[in-house]
């Protein structure tokens, strides 16, 4: 490319500058996020440079900024480009966003456990905030240098704004676009010489900025994965065994093929078991798929209608003997012995500090309680789907995946990664469901088989869209793990917590063991251990705020019980615990991403929410109305809620109001989206509270659709969810997840305050409660 030049900015970032056909310039960057850099260790960044972020300066002085991460409603197509645009010093209205395809340049390689394009773990903001600022500021510095050269003036006399450079003393101006040719001929600045904005000068970061796709959404333009419609496309459904791990043996395929509009019908055998990766190599990519029956037709309704006539024969396999009732019975049995069977690996799964057993003997008061929460399905509103075209040994795929590098579409199609073109498409909600995108694997397999069948008939290949039904989605999820907690606490005569015990009946490695949760570090005798329910054949995975989305309910509810038993104000009891760590905390680093629990920040959000909510006047509320509180440290963020709930004698529940105080560091990138995410997290928590429960009978999911898995509705939404962000000196962290977990116990603690009835299992709907 003409005028192209490349420069290494520092050990982990590069810049490449080139002319655009038709004028203008492309400023492209390779920036490695912090976590990847850490994982890569001493390895050098790749050469030749394969830019993963870029700004196009177009001749009309507008700018295109690439957005690399998947968009599922968290607003990342706004927030990362906003950071670049602000430091580049252009106006947001001059910017257009371009969605990046999946590309290995964003991650180390296929199958890497952590990759550069992910919507998950509330990682995008903390990982990209600084690199994106560097990108924008470096590009701005190039424009300043070009103008200074063109006018032969010192760069210090030059200012920028709205994509225009101004020589202050003479009021001369030049657009970025007009400076492109000069900038192309100049050396790229050293990153160390590039000055970032003082945050008080931000014009875009920190300003409420509506979603960039809002116009397309409100006018019904094709925007989502389900809307992808390449020419000639056929439509597929895929019926899998209702029992987890079951296999398709046979089906009345000849009959199905005669039905209106049906073009193909075949059995897809299950994937071979993956070959373990050699020692030291990255884990093998997740390329397993379940066996099933595919029906491919002219339109989706015809394919799904044909499914009603399908008579599959299944080999249900061993999971068919398992049920929720059996798991609960085993949990109770385990709790009676408290036998520890801690499996290896993963996060800390047990903790023993001091001697809880001995302390219980000296305690003035013992509090014991059993808590449980169920399996949950994610239920994003857009059912799982993906579209693929296998042609001449190559695969093109359009997917709503949250983590496109993980589900390797090449393997089921029988080709190499380099032969896959993977387009990321806006998803109708994620919530962790699309961290497992087996529909990509399924559609790749189906697309390959369809092309092969058509080739035998002398027909050209066609794209195929696989769309699951809502029932498929609820029956074949990777569910939020259930939890069974058996608590015991010891208090001294003053009500002080002196011993804390949690025995967890868990299942599999995704079960959550709160071995590192508050009140650890604030109680002298602390003991958490687990016993495994086995066999356990239900696939589990990450739901929004994995681990704390269930554990916050049990821990923050039990802490509330302890406070009440101690005769103390539940909010003040938490503050008192937090103020008295067993060992003084070391000075906190300003870098908060992945940092350990910081009690001062938890105190900050609790005090803030106390003051916002009128907590001290809670005794003046009418009978049957109460305030509950909870806080949670999750995904590097600190969130505390107070909830006002009203409960009638016949268990009609209403959330009157909620207050949230949140500390996710020094900067909220997009306050409009941030408030929306917090309110949405609270509304989701209401679904967890009242109605969401997946139960298993004979190895299959009992619930079928929203009628048995009711999400929160408009009529139940509180009039107000007041959100306050505390601005602290810590680096900005993510918000997608932290807002959800403590909302659940804040509501259940409010129910206790209103009624004196302690909620120890979820959902409430199975205990006679209804929304007012």
């Amino acid at each position, binding site marked *: 490319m003409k005028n192209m030049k490349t420069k290494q900015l520092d050990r982990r970032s590069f810049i490449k500058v080139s002319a655009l056909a038709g004028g203008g310039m492309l400023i492209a960057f390779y920036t490695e996020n912090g976590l990847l850099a850490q994982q890569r260790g001493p390895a050098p960044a790749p050469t030749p440079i394969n830019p993963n972020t870029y700004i196009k300066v177009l001749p009309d002085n507008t700018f295109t900024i690439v957005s690399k991460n998947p968009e599922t409603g968290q607003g990342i197509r706004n927030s990362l480009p906003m950071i670049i645009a602000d430091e580049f010093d252009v106006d947001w209205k001059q910017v257009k966003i371009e969605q990046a395809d999946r590309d290995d340049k964003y991650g180390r390689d296929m199958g890497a456990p952590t990759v550069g394009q992910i919507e998950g773990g509330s990682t995008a903001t903390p990982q990209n905030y600084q690199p994106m600022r560097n990108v924008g500021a470096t590009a701005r510095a190039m424009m300043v240098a070009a103008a200074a050269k063109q006018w032969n003036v010192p760069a210090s006399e030059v200012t920028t704004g709205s994509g225009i450079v101004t020589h202050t003393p003479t009021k001369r101006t030049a657009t970025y676009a007009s400076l492109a040719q000069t900038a192309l001929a100049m050396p790229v600045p050293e990153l160390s010489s590039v000055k970032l904005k003082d945050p008080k000068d931000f014009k875009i970061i920190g300003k409420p900025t509506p979603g960039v796709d809002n*116009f397309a959404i409100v*006018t019904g333009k094709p925007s989502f994965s389900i809307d992808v419609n390449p020419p000639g496309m056929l439509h597929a459904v895929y019926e899998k065994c209702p029992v987890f791990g079951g296999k398709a043996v046979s089906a009345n395929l000849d009959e199905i093929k005669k039905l209106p509009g049906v073009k193909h019908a075949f059995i897809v055998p299950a994937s071979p078991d993956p070959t373990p990766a050699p020692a030291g190599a990255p884990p093998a990519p997740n390329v397993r798929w379940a066996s099933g029956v595919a029906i491919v037709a002219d339109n989706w309704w015809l394919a799904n209608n044909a499914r009603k006539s399908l008579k599959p024969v299944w080999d249900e396999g061993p999971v068919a003997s398992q049920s929720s009732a059996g798991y609960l019975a085993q949990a109770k049995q385990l709790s009676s012995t408290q036998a520890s069977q801690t499996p290896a690996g993963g996060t800390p799964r047990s903790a023993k500090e001091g001697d809880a057993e001995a302390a219980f003997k000296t305690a003035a008061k013992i509090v014991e309680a059993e808590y449980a929460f169920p399996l949950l399905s994610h239920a994003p509103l857009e059912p799982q789907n993906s579209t693929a075209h296998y042609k001449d040994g190559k695969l093109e795929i359009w997917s709503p995946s949250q983590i496109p590098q993980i589900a390797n579409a090449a393997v089921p199609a029988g080709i190499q990664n380099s032969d896959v073109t993977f387009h990321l498409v806006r998803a109708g909600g994620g919530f962790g469901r699309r961290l497992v995108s087996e529909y990509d694997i399924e559609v790749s397999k189906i697309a390959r088989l369809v092309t092969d069948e058509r080739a035998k008939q002398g027909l050209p290949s066609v794209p195929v869209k696989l769309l699951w039904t809502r029932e498929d989605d609820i029956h074949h999820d990777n569910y939020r793990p259930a939890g069974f907690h058996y608590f015991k606490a010891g208090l001294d005569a003053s009500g002080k917590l002196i011993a804390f015990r949690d025995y967890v009946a868990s299942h599999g490695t995704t079960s959550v063991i709160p071995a590192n949760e508050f009140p650890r570090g604030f109680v002298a005798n602390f003991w958490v251990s687990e016993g495994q329910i086995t066999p356990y054949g239900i696939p589990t995975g990450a739901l929004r705020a994995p681990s704390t989305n269930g554990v916050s309910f049990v821990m923050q509810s039990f802490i509330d019980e302890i406070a009440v038993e101690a005769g103390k104000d539940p909010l003040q009891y938490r503050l008192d615990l937090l103020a008295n760590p067993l060992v003084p905390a070391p000075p906190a680093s300003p870098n908060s991403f992945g940092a350990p629990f910081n009690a001062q920040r938890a105190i900050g959000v609790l005090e803030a929410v106390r003051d916002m909510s009128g907590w001290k006047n809670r005794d003046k509320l009418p009978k049957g109305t109460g305030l509950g509180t909870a806080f949670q440290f999750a995904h590097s963020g600190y969130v505390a809620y107070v909830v006002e709930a009203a409960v009638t004698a016949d268990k009609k529940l209403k959330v009157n109001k909620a207050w949230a105080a949140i500390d996710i560091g020094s900067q909220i990138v997009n306050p409009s989206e941030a408030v929306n995410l917090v309110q949405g997290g609270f509304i989701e928590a209401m679904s967890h509270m009242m109605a969401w429960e997946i139960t298993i009978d004979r190895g299959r999911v009992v619930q079928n659709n*929203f009628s048995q898995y009711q999400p929160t509705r408009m*009529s139940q939404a509180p009039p*107000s*969810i007041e959100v306050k962000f505390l601005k602290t000196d810590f680096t900005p962290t993510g918000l997608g997840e932290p807002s959800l977990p403590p909302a659940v116990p804040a509501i259940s603690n409010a129910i206790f305050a209103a009624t004196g009835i302690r909620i120890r299992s979820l959902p409430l709907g199975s205990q006679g409660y209804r929304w007012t």
Partner: protein
Amino acid sequence: MAYKLTVNGKSQTVDVPGEMPLLWVLRDVLNMKGTKFGCGIGACGACTVHVGNKAVRACQTPISTVNAEVKTIEGLSADGSHPLQKAWLEVDVPQCGYCQAGQLMSAAALLASKPKPTDSDIAAAMSGNVCRCGTYLRIREAIHLAANGRKS
């Protein structure tokens, strides 16, 4: 069988089985992707359209029963000029955005019958529309804004 229908003012003829739901006629036959599939049982409202000015669930409406003009999100206004669309943009309602076409169509039917709805009117009219992301507070605010020029 051939069915004649008018969608957003335009006459269309489709040759499909009579029991085929309007949703799939719109999406897969007429290639209008604005109306969304969410549950297939009329429990989520993602597929809400107007048939003869009434909000209906297109997934539960066989094409053979469609006996009045159909209006979809594409027909609310293509340029975003409907007061509800403008309010949705001003309030920045969407998160994932998948439910919002159905929300807008339910809200449009509400305002057509009740130009100044109260919170409880909104709750009654909108509770058939699920927003999995939980944008209900903003939907409520946007409906008030479209109705009164104020947010509440």
